[in-house]
């Protein structure tokens, strides 16, 4: 993994701003972590320490919460995130084959990020677009009624 985490003064200032407004309402931790994930692309230990201090919680508690939820990550992700849905509707319509194709073509296992930081391959929980199963997403774009050949086609365009 060679993706560098970009922690700038500016981003940290933004985090403090978010925490300031979240502190005013009950249960500020989850909204803060969501924002931190958005700002930094991940929540590494350095950021967890800042949040722990500011919200007056132990670092153990913060780390426990960050690692519990699938949407928070400790390491940065690639520029392009490919998610293949392994929800039931997609699975019974063959999404495992689509995932294998990406894994094979990118030489990545699900959950891994490429050396150059370009691609992250993930399998995802049901995103609720079951009418279009099987589906995969590339960043925010959803590709429905997908197939192995569609996966190859999309990947060729991304490269």
């Amino acid at each position, binding site marked *: 993994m060679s993706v560098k985490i970009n922690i700038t003064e500016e981003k940290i200032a933004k985090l403090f701003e978010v925490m300031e407004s979240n502190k005013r309402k009950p249960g500020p931790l989850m909204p803060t972590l969501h924002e931190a994930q958005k700002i930094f692309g991940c929540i590494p230990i350095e950021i967890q320490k800042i949040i722990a201090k500011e919200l007056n919680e132990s670092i153990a508690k913060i780390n426990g919460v960050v690692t519990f939820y699938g949407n928070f990550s400790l390491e940065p992700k690639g520029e392009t995130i490919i998610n293949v849905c392994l929800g039931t509707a997609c699975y019974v319509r063959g999404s495992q084959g689509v995932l294998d194709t990406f894994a094979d073509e990118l030489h990545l296992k699900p959950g891994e990020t490429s050396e150059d930081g370009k691609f992250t391959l993930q399998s995802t929980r049901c995103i609720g677009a079951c009418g279009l199963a099987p589906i995969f997403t590339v960043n925010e774009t959803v590709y429905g*009624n997908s197939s192995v050949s569609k996966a190859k086609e999309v990947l060729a365009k991304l490269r």
Partner: protein
Amino acid sequence: MLSRMHILICGGKECLSSHSKELRDEFNRVLNELNLLDEVRLVMAGCFGLCNQGPIVVMTPGETFYSHVTVEDIREICEEHVVKGNIVSRLLIKDPIDKKKIKNYSQLKFYDRQRRIALRNCGQINPADINEYIARDGYLALGKVLSSMTPASVVAEMKKSGLRGRGGAGFSTGQKWEFATRSVDDVKYVICNADEGDPGAFMDRSVLEGDPHSVLEAMAICGYAIGSHQGYIYVRAEYPIAVERLNNAIKQARELHLLGNNIFSSGFGFEIELRLGAGAFVCGEETALMASIEGNRGMPRLKPPFPAVKGLWGHPTNVNNVETFANVPAIFLKGADWFKAIGTEKSSGTKVFALGGKIANTGLVEIPMGTTLREVIFDIGGGIPNRRKFKAVQTGGPSGGCITEKALDTPIDFDSLVAMGSMMGSGGMIVMDEDNCMVDVARFYLDFTVDESCGKCTPCREGTRRMLDILNKICAGNGTLEDLDLLESIANMVKDSSLCALGQTAPNPVLSTLTHFRDEYIAHVVDKVCPAGVCPNLTNYTITDKCIGCTKCALNCPVSAISGTVKQKHVIDLTKCIRCGACKKACPVNAITSKPLPKEENR
């Protein structure tokens, strides 16, 4: 300003993924060019339920239903339909059931047996505009409740309606409200559970995207009934469109003083805030959900004390699911007796199901309780595509079980599904055909629960893992008959001794497949074959002489294991083949078979 024509474009997630936004932009451009923007109104509506026909465009008046509309079709629709009043017949939806082209929305057989209560506004209104909700009697129920009913009579009406929780367990909603009413505390909370995590279920997403105000209105009614002034909606982060529309709806309701202080000058105030989930299935369990809002690991705790006594931050809390709430305004407008008359004796009203898997019409259907599974799958869902044979239907997601052909004529309600070893769950309905291996399906669900088990109690944390080990062993061709007994005994142990519903129901997919498809398990462990041709170690793919050499299989093979020249029979290199089945799916002439391995070649 009134318009002579409305063009409704489906803005549900599926249709948006199929580029319905581009359609709107193109409509805008062409209508502007034709100088028609004053006469025609464009509406991004909620889901119409026919998700595999998208993007869908409906023209009113006339309710002309166009399917699979592309950007290139827009000019023709505008010039022909809008200007001249001629229907563009090539775009008319084909009835997915009798394949005839249908002019009018209401003629669609798909909707014939449906009765839309929770989905009453989905696809009918622009969810981003509160005025459209109000025009269809939105917030009228809240007005009626606040101006003419006491909290006690609200609870009594709910109890009378017989509404049961649509999130899965089917507990009486009125009783739940009554418990919360009985708890004495200045601070109480109303929570809407929108953490719809069951894979294959998307009815709550459609309600939130297509009719967000119905949930807000119902939460305010509930707040009034139980004496709460603060509501939270806990929604999955995986539903960005729903989050956006909810935020917008809350803002609009506040502006019109339908949320906030002194609603309808009644002295009653209610606020709603959104909280996002972060990818943990267990947070759909109410105590875990509350732990998550509080900023903790989303782990469930023992009940009692129930949330109605001790909930969020220790205060009495009422938790209901999205679809449950969506029914509430309709109940107060039309009365508990009206609602009670729909459905079965013990399960009144309707239920929304998300039809998925091997079924012709994937999408959302809302049917009265008591409809049979056969009607849902074959009459509404259009049956199994590609002339395959129905094998089973899975309801209730990872907590449910498989139901076979034999039980298809049972009327669906909460109790009948439990009696069949499955459960209502949130309403996902995944249809499987002869190409699905039931052992693999059980393994798939276990894989999911192992991943999502929070780890708090041992039976669930360790038990589900051991069950998965055994299922993996069986799928790999190394299982024995003793493994089946062990599997069954662990499953029963996990079911009886887990702390929360996740663990208690996790063995259901295993137990129900063991009951109904024991022969498939036995084929795996004794004969070492996978009858459906799914489990890689127990199957071989071969290309028969039917091959026309179209190269589609080779193009679809993820590991390039297929070779051959155009118009010649292709060959699969079995040493490279990963048995994913992509070639079989791609073949236009059914030339690829996944025959079980002959016995001597095993292992």
